[in-house]
């Protein structure tokens, strides 16, 4: 990469000594491309939004006196003649992890300037993301057909529905936006848009940051909403 413009060229100390130097020298603090720094800061703000949703969910779940619906039963699917707990949710989890892997490889291939492979890995990531959203839509329809609503459900505390639709809906929206983002960047990579640009293929890494974040949020939703 050609990011020599980002710092004075002096040898940078690692660790806490480097931390002090980065902040006290008369230079740009974060030695990363601006797009990457801004994506990290955006993700930090998104972390707070998702945290507020999850903390809100925790609060209503603690404070309700009604029984909380058991997620392993609510999200069970019949397979092989038996109800398997959280079956679809487990499949969705594995799909998202698979897509994180293809994304990580796409970033690596981008820096190796392998346009063809970067493109196909990003497309694979987007397809996996789209199938995740499809399964989420299936899950929503199933719950709605069973009478789950944001204001009540037959299985217990009304807050279950409100938390479920709000949290998974906001996450699903992030995945959908990510699929569009991935496809836009993938097609630009394919037609060589980034070949002669100063940042080169760091855009693939920035897109990857967003995508991994979506997977990261799912890890927390899976643990707190579906398993807890």
């Amino acid at each position, binding site marked *: 990469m050609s990011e020599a413009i980002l710092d004075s060229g002096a040898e*940078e100390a690692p*660790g806490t000594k*480097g*931390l002090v130097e*980065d*902040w006290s020298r008369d230079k740009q603090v*974060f*030695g*990363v*491309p601006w797009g990457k720094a801004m994506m*990290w*800061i955006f993700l*930090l703000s998104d*972390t*707070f939004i998702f*945290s507020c949703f999850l*903390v*809100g969910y*925790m*609060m*209503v779940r*603690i*404070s309700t*006196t*009604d*029984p909380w619906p058991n997620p*392993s*039963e*609510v999200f*069970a699917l019949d397979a092989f003649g038996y*109800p398997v707990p*959280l079956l679809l949710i*487990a499949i969705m*989890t*594995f799909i998202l*992890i698979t897509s*994180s*892997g293809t*994304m*990580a490889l796409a970033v*690596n291939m981008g*820096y*190796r300037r392998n346009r063809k492979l970067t493109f196909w890995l990003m497309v694979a990531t987007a397809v996996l993301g789209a199938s995740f959203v499809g399964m989420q839509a299936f899950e929503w329809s199933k719950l709605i057909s*069973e009478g789950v609503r944001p204001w009540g459900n*037959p*299985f*217990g*505390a009304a807050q279950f529905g409100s938390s479920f639709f709000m949290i998974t809906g906001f996450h699903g929206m992030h995945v959908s936006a990510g699929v569009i983002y991935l496809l836009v960047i993938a097609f630009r990579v394919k037609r060589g848009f980034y070949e002669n640009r100063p940042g080169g293929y760091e855009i693939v*890494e920035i897109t*990857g940051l967003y995508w*991994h*974040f979506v*997977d*990261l949020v799912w*890890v*927390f939703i*899976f*643990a707190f909403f579906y*398993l*807890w």
Partner: protein
Amino acid sequence: MADDTTQHPLKIYWIMWAALFVLSTFSYATDFLDRGYLRHFLILLFMFAKAGGIVWIFMHMGWERMALKIAILGPPVAILVLIGMMSLEGEYVEDSRLENYGESTMEVETPGHH
């Protein structure tokens, strides 16, 4: 950013990828334990292991400089304060509901038998 931070060997990604699959399987397996300290401890353990791996390896945070690490990973620590306050508040609200309205009389269906 120096070149060595962007072209690490692919091996570490394959290892991380496999680790995520294994950890997710463990996570899913906690659903077969009864609710209690062990289950909740294991849920958190696997959750933080997965989250840490994603941030450190897949999002390359492990290779970033301390200034960026602290700027991004520091502020979320404040969420712990919110979690602490809201769980206290939640307990209080539940207690006052029980005191004023009594135990729940809600009749619930068991999901999934149709």
